[in-house]
């Protein structure tokens, strides 16, 4: 049949696909230059497009670094994120190791339960923990502990998934070998299994951290003024008075995301290499 016709169709699909990628990634790149805007606008002024150095400034970054509220938000985000990650990674790794055993009872149901925080609508999580934790005999609303527990619960499924995936390639005979050499269960875990699955554990931990670092609804419903995190602070910024300081924060968060992404990909490549049969 007419090859020109099929070429045109292919070309059209190609252009459509390219627009798809532009649609996905383009918006992020709009933010970066605008965060250096010398004026408090969200649009490219002609001077900016002509690359006039006068049109660019670091004033929004300066704003950000001099603002007490943003400092506190940054501290809170890291504090809550790190605590939630430690909790989620520990519990999630143990659970994944145990789920990996072939004789695990009701594996499918347990897995569905452990993954469920990932698909529960975040508003329902927020509403439930708010009601539950604000009851007087629990009293965890507006506390760091309440938020950390909720974030760890939201992040744990990611650890379970990544560690389970890494364990699928783990050679169980290594454990038997260690055992025949006289290693007890703890030594086998620490010296043989953990080093081999550590890329999966770290990847899961990064997912858990990112989940907490990006979470706003639980903090919004349950957190007090004292527990404001970066996304919570951004939320107010967007709702109340949107000014380019938000774009400066956004730019820093994009850079952070890229760093996390490359770490995860590096770890993935390492796991793939390590688990390859010699």
């Amino acid at each position, binding site marked *: 049949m007419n090859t020109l016709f099929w070429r045109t169709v292919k070309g059209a699909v190609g252009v459509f696909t390219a627009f798809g990628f532009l649609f996905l990634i383009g918006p992020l790149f709009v933010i970066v230059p605008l965060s250096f805007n010398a004026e408090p606008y969200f649009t490219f002024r002609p001077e900016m497009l002509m690359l006039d150095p006068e049109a660019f400034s670091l004033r929004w970054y300066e704003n950000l670094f001099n603002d007490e509220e943003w400092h506190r938000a940054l501290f809170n985000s890291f504090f809550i994120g790190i605590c939630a990650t430690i909790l989620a990674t520990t519990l999630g790794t143990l659970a994944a190791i145990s789920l990996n055993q072939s004789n695990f009872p009701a594996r499918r149901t347990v897995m569905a*339960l452990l993954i469920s925080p990932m698909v529960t609508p975040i508003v329902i999580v927020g509403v*439930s923990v708010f009601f539950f934790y604000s009851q007087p005999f629990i009293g965890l609303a507006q506390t760091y502990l309440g938020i950390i527990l909720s974030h760890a619960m939201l992040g744990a499924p990611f650890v379970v*998934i990544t560690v389970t995936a890494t364990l699928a390639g783990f050679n169980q005979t290594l454990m038997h070998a260690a055992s025949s050499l006289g290693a007890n269960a703890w030594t086998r875990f620490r010296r043989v299994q953990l080093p081999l699955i550590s890329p999966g554990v770290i990847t899961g931990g990064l997912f858990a951290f990112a989940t907490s670092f990006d979470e706003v609804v639980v903090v919004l419903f349950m957190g007090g003024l004292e527990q404001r995190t970066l996304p919570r602070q951004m939320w107010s910024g967007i709702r109340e008075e949107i000014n380019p300081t938000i774009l400066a924060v956004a730019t820093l968060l*994009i850079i952070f995301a890229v760093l996390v992404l490359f770490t995860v990909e590096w770890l993935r490549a390492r796991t793939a290499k390590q688990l390859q049969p010699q």
Partner: protein
Amino acid sequence: MGKLKASSLALPLIAFVVVTLLVPIFSLVRLSVYDSTVAEALPKTAEVLQAWSGTELPSIEVYETLAEELIAAQETRELGRVASRVNRILSGSRSTISKTPRRFARTDAPDAREEFIEIDEDWGELAIWHALRQATDTFTSRNFLQAVDFRLMPDGSIERMPESQQVYVTLFIRTLGVSIAVTALCFLIGYPMAYAMAHASSGWARILLVLVLIPFWTSLLVRTTSWIVILQQQGVLNDIFVFLGIVADDNRLTMVHNMTGTLVAMTQVLLPFMILPLYSVMTNIPRDLTKAASSLGANPFQAFVRVYFPNSLPGVAAGGLLVFILSIGYYITPALVGGSKGQLISNLIAYHLQTSLNWGLAAALSVILLVGVIVLYVVYDRFIGIDRMKLG
């Protein structure tokens, strides 16, 4: 020993999820059907009203009991909550109830009933007594009825809400519609993207994968902010349109704080969840299949529709269901870029939690949403398998 130990390592996380998620959700379900505020504040009234016929005004003793307990409730500061509960059943009764205990001292009527009626004529009507009796029920279907646009009348009958107040069914339908539209858009845009990634040279495939993963890892608020910057009236896209002469400067398009904003931003935010499962399925489709189809005389369209596409269906199902499940409970993006027309059911739940303080209704709406998500989750597990969920 081995078996016991193997399962016991999962116990801490199981217990943790039960305590931090299942128990709170259980208490949410309870809240949607259970409310003991009035029964606890007016226990004796609740008891005597159970014996009340409902066809004529209660006896003077009932009025006396109520007077006593209303005064007590005022002292314990429970009165406001009691009044607002009764007001939900019979609107307008809030002020009747809250002013009554303050005015007893000022009347000189012969008996309690006359006193009440002198304070407010409504106390001489059956309606407020029916409402009060209904409010003393600790278990109620009121919230669920309201969540589907019905109401429980003070006399216990069920009626449709007046047309102007029928909001929730419309909102559930809108949420479903938006979820279907977002899933369809993600499929349309994401399918060729995943195809391009799966069939590019390994160098390009890596670059394209990074392009998909950067937004995946970027904060949701950052991505939503970027859409405000792009879509608003003085925003980047309108500037481009004006520059190109597509729209006039004084007639810029409204693309954000409405349904367009919600649809566009949600599609972009959820797109990676469609692309990644598709990509992982597509990389495993043997290349020879389409070649075989062509050599048997199929044109590229036939080869795609009859051979390639059916092989990619598991990816379509996995990605589509995941996007649908995530979009049905979406909150943040509609809240920030949806305006009043682009709000979804989650946003209304948050409204009743934070603004109207009608927690029972917030809980009932949540339970309905949750049941929908659980059904979808079970379908996902049956047909795709939760343990095959991949990340990144």
